[in-house]
């Protein structure tokens, strides 16, 4: 490994900063989710997030990163293995020679995306998935779902990217993918016992708000970092992230105010997340005013979408489909409407800014492809695992809680009399 001299310090610093921020989002997600489950399952879901960091890091280094970013093997379907083990990074990544950041920094940055996308799935499987089954699930899912999708969209040689599909920071690969993959898993997994009749209220909303705060902070790295360099596009992506988060927050609480009379705190946090989800594909391609609108639409739409599970009876515990799936779809469609080259010359012109239907249809294609592909393959993986190792804990373990049954731990031990043990 020799030290490359062709990249510049600012862009490298920017991408490394982005990588640190995106890594920080996963513990943030663990808290966001952890606060929303009951006290007996909080460690279980946090553990699913932490284990995702461990497992995906290793798989990404060993195989995934290369399969995504190496020279295309043909048809834009998958990359090769020259970059496996983080080798071959003294040269620019194939197709990304315009990037000023050190290629290894770019790979690490991308690794963090794969980690959090895997971690998101835990929001659907909460309270009932076996710990070993979750590990097997995300490992297979990473290789069979995430890696191809990421190659298609994030590698310039992927077939969707090649067609001209725009996706700034992962509306397809991260958001739609996590939403529809989670839907597939929860359909196989089945509902939590007692759901929806029994109250399964969040055990600590402040924990969730803290998690949302960390997600917000980290999302600047996620979106603005996806410019892969410090430039005006990065500034716009940063700004758009803030604006969409703010209006997403407002949209959700306004909806609640009119629908249930009460604007909730968890709704505010959820709305901010929904806004950021929707702006993810658009961040560096649309104007700040469009970002305000996209965030607002996401806040309203996702507040509606999370109710669907009660109507249709699938138990997506913490609304990965309702927030990430739906928000991601919205973002991709919005990008087809509002993209403008005045923000990013390397972008496109959306339907509503006079670009015709071309880009819009491409975005719809990419969104639909992602949803269908992610759902289908993940469904097969989940089914296979369920038939072999079994996805679900026993009834008794579910009553006791997964913290004790899967990890021999209790999250909290309060009270003057200690553990009484």
């Amino acid at each position, binding site marked *: 490994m020799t030290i490359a001299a062709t990249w510049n310090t600012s862009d490298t610093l920017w991408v490394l900063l982005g990588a640190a921020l995106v890594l920080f989002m996963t513990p943030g997600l663990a808290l966001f989710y952890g606060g929303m489950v009951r006290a007996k399952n909080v460690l279980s879901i946090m553990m699913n997030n932490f284990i995702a960091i461990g497992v995906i890091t290793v798989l990404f280094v060993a195989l995934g990163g290369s399969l995504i970013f190496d020279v295309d093997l043909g048809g834009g379907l998958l990359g090769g293995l020259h970059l496996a083990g983080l080798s071959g990074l003294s040269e620019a990544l194939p197709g990304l020679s315009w990037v000023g950041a050190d290629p290894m920094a770019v790979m690490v940055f991308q690794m963090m995306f794969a980690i959090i996308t895997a971690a998101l799935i835990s929001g659907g499987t909460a309270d009932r998935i076996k710990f070993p089954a979750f590990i097997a699930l995300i490992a297979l899912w990473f290789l069979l779902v995430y890696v191809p999708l990421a190659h298609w969209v994030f590698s310039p040689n992927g077939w969707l990217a090649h067609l001209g599909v725009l996706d700034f920071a992962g509306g397809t690969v991260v958001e739609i993918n996590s939403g529809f993959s989670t839907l597939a898993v929860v359909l196989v997994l089945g509902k939590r016992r007692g759901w929806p009749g*029994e109250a399964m209220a969040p055990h600590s909303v402040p924990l969730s708000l803290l998690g949302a705060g960390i997600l917000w902070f980290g999302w600047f790295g996620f979106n603005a970092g996806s410019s892969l360099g410090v430039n005006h596009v990065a500034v716009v992506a940063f700004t758009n992230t803030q604006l969409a988060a703010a209006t997403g927050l407002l949209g959700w609480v306004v909806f609640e105010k009119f629908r249930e009379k009460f604007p909730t705190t968890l709704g505010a946090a959820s709305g901010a997340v929904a806004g950021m989800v929707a702006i993810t594909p658009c961040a560096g391609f649309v104007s700040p005013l469009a970002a305000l609108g996209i965030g607002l639409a996401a806040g309203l739409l996702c507040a509606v979408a999370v109710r669907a599970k009660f109507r249709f009876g699938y138990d997506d515990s913490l609304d990965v489909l309702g927030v990430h799936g739906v928000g991601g779809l919205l973002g991709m469609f919005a990008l087809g409407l509002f993209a403008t080259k005045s923000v990013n010359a390397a972008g496109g012109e959306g339907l509503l800014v006079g670009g015709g239907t071309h880009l819009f249809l491409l975005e719809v294609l990419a969104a639909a492809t992602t949803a269908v592909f992610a759902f289908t393959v993940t469904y097969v993986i989940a089914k296979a695992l369920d038939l072999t190792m079994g996805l679900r804990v026993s009834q008794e373990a579910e*009553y006791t809680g997964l913290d*004790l049954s899967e990890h*021999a*731990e*209790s999250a909290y031990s309060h009270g003057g009399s200690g*553990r*009484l*043990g």
Partner: protein
Amino acid sequence: MKLIVAVVKPFMVAKVKDALQEAGVVGMTVSEAHGYGRQRGHTEVYRGGEYDVEFVPKARLEIMVGDERADELVSLIVETARTGTIGDGKVWVMPLATTVRVRTGERGADAL
């Protein structure tokens, strides 16, 4: 008047409450408790330290009832809260000398 105290598994509280409500009992007081008995606790592990937690979470229900209904309601509670596995809990009944409703000062059966 009698006081029925029922120590049951925590997830039985809602079911017992529903059964009592149906039987016309309009009130009860619940508190959290931990029980020790034939039901074994569990082991927790923290950095190689294994801790035996011998106490199991239980809910403790108190229901004031008229003397004439005590037996019937005890049976109702026992049947409702039963899973048949060790640790289902205990019910005991105690005599009450006085009962008052704070809001009105009513006493005896009127306090219910």
